[in-house]
């Protein structure tokens, strides 16, 4: 069954940062007015460089972080401010897998207890039943049922990540955010975890939000991909479309920067420094314009581009004045300019 399972509308998260001991504070928008529809059963990749807000967005979707403003709907229901029983129900259906397999398990708790925790809080079964479900889940993620009595430090990074996944899935949730689940792992172990996630996603018909900075990994696992830059989604498209025909200049830059897969495909690159602007002092207009090769003065640096489908491609969304205009002759819609 298709349809939207999670919808984020104008989701924003602001942080106060201290500028220095004597300089006061400033506001940083880690996530800035993100609109995102996530379809039931799909895997959507959230990709971007450090500081782009992908982790913050992921954590807001599972309600580990409170949005500063905006709305989250899950399964047609506004869950932005749910509490009590409703929040509990939400937590039963929405789970998260963390990045760091070394800090995502309580070092003092046996892994069986950690894995049984979701069952305990949602009052599933008695002690024996819970144990049995933990044992089954351990086997499902490729470990042994006898591992339940061990402590986290007895496991390798890859094994811990399996435990983390098992814990997130033990309640059979509908929706899981995987926050950089393989970036802390050795390369030879990454593949095991990616395969496991893909298998479980199929088997349990999960909706998966896969947060990562590695484009190849995202391409491998996702159905659709959202590219984030400085707290905004700048491009959102089907996997194959995004990677074969990137439209936003930032997406192009990202893909260009990925090292060659074979020494024969080497190509010269620009060594000049082109860096993320300080989020404390974001540029006006399009946030990417200071680094953009196709930027047009007097326009891109004044008006924030909305996330829009180019007229020729209704399934793709791009936040770029120039690329939208290239694909159409329609003049810019003033109603959408903000700030």
């Amino acid at each position, binding site marked *: 069954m298709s349809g939207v399972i999670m919808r984020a509308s104008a989701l924003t998260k602001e942080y106060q940062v201290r500028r220095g001991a004597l300089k006061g504070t400033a506001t940083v928008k880690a996530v800035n007015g993100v609109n995102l529809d996530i379809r039931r059963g799909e895997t959507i990749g959230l990709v971007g460089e450090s500081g782009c807000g992908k982790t913050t967005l992921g954590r807001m979707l599972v309600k580990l972080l409170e949005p500063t403003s905006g709305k989250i709907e899950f399964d047609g229901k506004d869950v932005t401010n749910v509490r009590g029983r409703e929040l509990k129900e939400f937590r039963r259906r929405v789970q998260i897998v963390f990045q760091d397999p070394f800090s995502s398990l309580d070092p003092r708790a046996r892994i069986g207890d950690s894995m049984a925790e979701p069952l305990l809080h949602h009052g599933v079964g008695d002690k024996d039943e819970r144990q049995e479900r933990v044992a089954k889940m351990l086997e499902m993620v490729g470990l042994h049922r006898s591992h339940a009595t061990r402590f986290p430090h007895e496991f390798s990074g890859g094994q811990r990540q399996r435990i983390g996944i098992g814990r997130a899935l033990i309640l059979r949730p509908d929706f899981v955010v995987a926050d950089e689940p393989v970036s802390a792992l050795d390369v030879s172990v990454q593949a095991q975890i990616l395969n496991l996630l893909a298998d479980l996603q199929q088997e349990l018909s999960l909706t998966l939000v896969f947060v990562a900075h590695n484009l190849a990994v995202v391409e491998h696992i996702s159905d659709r991909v959202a590219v984030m830059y400085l707290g905004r989604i700048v491009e959102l498209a089907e996997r194959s479309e995004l990677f074969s025909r990137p439209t936003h200049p930032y997406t192009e830059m990202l893909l260009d*920067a990925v090292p060659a897969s074979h020494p024969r495909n080497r190509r010269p690159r620009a060594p000049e420094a082109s860096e993320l602007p300080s989020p404390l002092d974001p540029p006006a207009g399009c946030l990417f314009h200071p680094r953009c090769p196709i930027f047009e003065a007097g326009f891109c640096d004044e008006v924030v581009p909305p996330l829009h489908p180019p007229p020729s491609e209704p399934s793709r969304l791009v936040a770029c004045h120039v690329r939208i205009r290239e694909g159409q002759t329609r003049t810019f819609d003033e109603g959408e300019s903000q700030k």
Partner: protein
Amino acid sequence: MSEAHDDGRVLLEIKGLTTAFSLAEGDFNAVDNVSFSVKEGRTLSLVGESGSGKSMTALSVMGLVPSPGKVVAGEVLLDGRNLLDMSAREMRKIRGAEISMIFQQPTSALNPTYRVGTQIREVFKLHRDWTRQVETEKVIAALRAVGMPDPEARLRAYPHELSGGMAQRVMIAMALACEPRILIADEPTTALDVTIQSQILELIRELQSSSDTSVILITHDLGVVAEMADEVAVMYAGEIVETTDVETLFDEPLHPYTKGLMGSVPVLGDPRPRLEAIPGTVPNLTELSVGCRFASRCQARIEAGLTVCQTHHPELVEVRPGHAVRCWLYSGQEVAE
């Protein structure tokens, strides 16, 4: 771009390098009988996962093995002089002037309490006899060479005021300030974002070609290898398991570990439905078996029905000119070209 079989002059030759650690958990060789050579103006890449000994190899070459560790065997020959025989004083003249090194975490590799300019100037204080004014000019020139915008102002910056990419540029400026013959780069872009990585790699490449510096590039990322290396040595559990030129490695990897690595990494533009994962985990160096260190994770061994792998340790055997493998599947037999 790179001619695969060009025979440059060998600048640095490492023979049988072994670095041992003695810890409470047990004794082990972090670097075990490692040999390779680096040619003038070319890039050798040491590839491996965490614990493979690639960083420790670099530190052994520099004479900077951390405290409980010790180089116990081997030679490090720079122009025929064995660095391991040198006095501490002689070695200090080499470091920073003839062999330089940059590290993975550029922001913590810089001293937080000194300005960037002061830290680059220190290299000149140590290796050159220049007046302060000349030093300042050279500091600015070094910063300019690494593409630091507004170098006259940036030399007054503190490290924490720089982004990771800028800090790595400063590290490179510092490393290349005295025009060394060898630059050892230990995971120089692992902590950086991909767009910044691309800039830094290109910068290293440009500086290398303009000064004919040799580079030892340490990385776990096959993409970086494909992008940068001329020769490659693949390391696993402290030893080299395969070494050849970069094109051959990507065209015809021989060692099951090398093949496994290539199969397990997703490649952009080539979405395979499934990755070929290497089962198991990197072994603990204190608990190595007598046989091949990769045997417990090796599928090819099972398919070939080899039993020798678990009982005997394979040697690094040259199976064709310039291509050596440490694997029982290939030892004793030539591989057809």
